[in-house]
């Protein structure tokens, strides 16, 4: 619930004064998600450097982040090139699947409860943003049409 509130505030702030449109909303949401993943990565590296996350856990999580990053590049390229909505939706689904895998295979396997809680909260915030992107895409078919 708090994640949703945070994301709602984020959107209100980010949309203020900006030109409207489904494409722009999707761009803003993608940007927010990218920022969320970047924050998650920084938090994870800090936990690892402070010895609260093992090498194995660190490798597993960074492997998950790498997959998300690769999916993110594919999504950005599709949006830049004005790809059709089904293509963008498929790319987005890939991102969502990668994020779920990171949560299940990486974050939930962290043994230190405090570290796990920090990473879980961070990733859930990013996941909430991603849900908004999906809603934007589902709500407006011609998202890919650049203004």
């Amino acid at each position, binding site marked *: 619930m*708090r*994640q949703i509130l*945070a994301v709602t*505030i*984020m959107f209100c*702030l*980010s949309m203020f004064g*900006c030109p409207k449109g489904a*494409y*722009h909303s999707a*761009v*803003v949401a*993608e*940007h*927010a998600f*990218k*920022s*969320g*993943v*970047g*924050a998650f*990565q920084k*938090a994870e*590296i800090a936990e*690892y450097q402070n010895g609260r996350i093992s*090498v194995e856990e*660190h*490798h597993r999580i*960074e*492997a998950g*982040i*790498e997959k*998300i*990053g*690769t999916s*993110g*590049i594919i999504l*950005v*390229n599709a*949006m*830049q090139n004005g790809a059709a909505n089904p293509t963008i939706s498929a790319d987005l689904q890939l991102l969502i699947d990668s994020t779920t895998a990171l949560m299940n295979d990486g974050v939930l396997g962290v043994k230190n409860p405090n570290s796990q*809680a*920090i990473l879980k*909260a*961070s990733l859930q*915030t990013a996941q909430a943003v991603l849900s908004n992107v999906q809603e934007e895409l589902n709500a407006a078919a011609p998202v890919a049409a*650049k*203004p």
Partner: protein
Amino acid sequence: MTPATPVTPPSASGAVAIIGDIAMLEPIAFNLVASLVRGLKGKSDAEILAGDATDWSSIVAIAHSEQSK
């Protein structure tokens, strides 16, 4: 007359857990908002996406490098 059911006060550990949860999330959410506003200020959609493509590449490169440590 049935005695009133005693009301169990919230446990101190439960309250601490909730406060800890909020404190953990707030900086994350605040940093996200700050980063978002910084990233969007005065930029067109094309510029935002161009910057994001670079940032994603950086995230991938860091993730790749961290796995070899």
